[in-house]
């Protein structure tokens, strides 16, 4: 909505806003139109620029996916584990090998420089 004039600010009773254009009144669509694929770029623009219409099923349409969300989640789980192993230092890898049979993982404390007490 493009507002061009607002009535005097001092009056707080009624606010009358003037709008010169028909476009917001009648919800007019974008001015370039193409039919039956005559100009594919314009058809792309039409989808982009026109206000999106609501579908009957719901407001957002789900995109067509090749694999389901569950499969994607499982894939990510194993991916995270394998990436972690790839970048693990030698000592961590050895520790993980020992723990593989048991179902818990230990956090490896890094050996840092310890300041002498005195």
């Amino acid at each position, binding site marked *: *909505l*493009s507002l*061009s*004039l607002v*009535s005097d600010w001092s*009056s*707080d*009773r*009624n*606010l*009358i*806003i*003037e*709008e*010169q*254009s*028909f*476009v*917001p*009144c*009648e*919800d*007019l*669509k*974008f*001015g*370039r*139109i*193409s*039919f*039956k*694929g*005559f*100009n594919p770029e*314009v058809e792309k*623009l039409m989808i*982009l*620029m026109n206000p999106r219409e609501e579908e009957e099923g719901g407001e957002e349409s789900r995109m067509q996916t090749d694999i389901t969300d569950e499969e994607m989640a499982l894939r990510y789980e194993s991916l995270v584990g394998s990436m972690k192993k790839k970048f693990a230092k030698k000592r961590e890898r050895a520790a993980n090998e020992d723990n593989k049979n048991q179902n818990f993982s230990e956090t490896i404390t890094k050996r840092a420089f310890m300041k002498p007490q005195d």
Partner: protein
Amino acid sequence: MFPALKQRVGDVLLPGDEFSSEDDDTISLTDHVKPEKVVCGPGLRRSGDRLVVCKSGVLRHKQPNMFWMESQQRRYVPAKGETIIGIVTVKSGDIFKVDCGGSEQASLSYLAFEGATKRNRPNVQVGDLVFAQFIIANKDMEPELVCMDSSGRANGMGVFGGGGLLFSVSLGLVRRLLSPHSEVLSDLQQLFPCELVVGMNGRLWVKSSRVQQTLVIANLLQSCDTMTAQQRRELFRRVAQGAL
């Protein structure tokens, strides 16, 4: 004022009819009245605290608070934000002068195109058609056009038009073509593959795969301006059957 306006929606009103907040039958018991906002569209004007009709026509309403006068005319008056088809008439220095069908020519800066810089000037010649939108359009200043939106993208605006035909229609037909569930457009869709550019200044540009089809579409649109819906459907059907 709001209830008085809502009551007259759909009525024919004439210039001089006015709506005032003093005409309301209800009187508020509390001193502090909640300000009711009214948006008056084309054909309605604010005069002090009153709303005055300045064009004869039918009063229309859109939720929640928009009112306007629906009328027929052919003369275009530039309005901010509207996209139009302009014809470049003068190319002087840094700006182009564009004929938009209004009372004076609009100016279009050469920098107002996507990707234009001082070194990289857009390729616009005198006589080119541009699809542009107004950023300044009031009765006190020269209208100004741009061919990009506020973020610098073209969005379909700019120079266009090889191989098509430009013609004029009434402003009412343009609005009917661009309205959300346009019947004229859906009828036209059944005919031939074609491309249309619709300017709010009453100018249409059509291009189809053959010159004959382009002329047919142009004639159809010009003649269905003054037809009833039934006459128009009949005409389109005859053309579709006769089309080779």
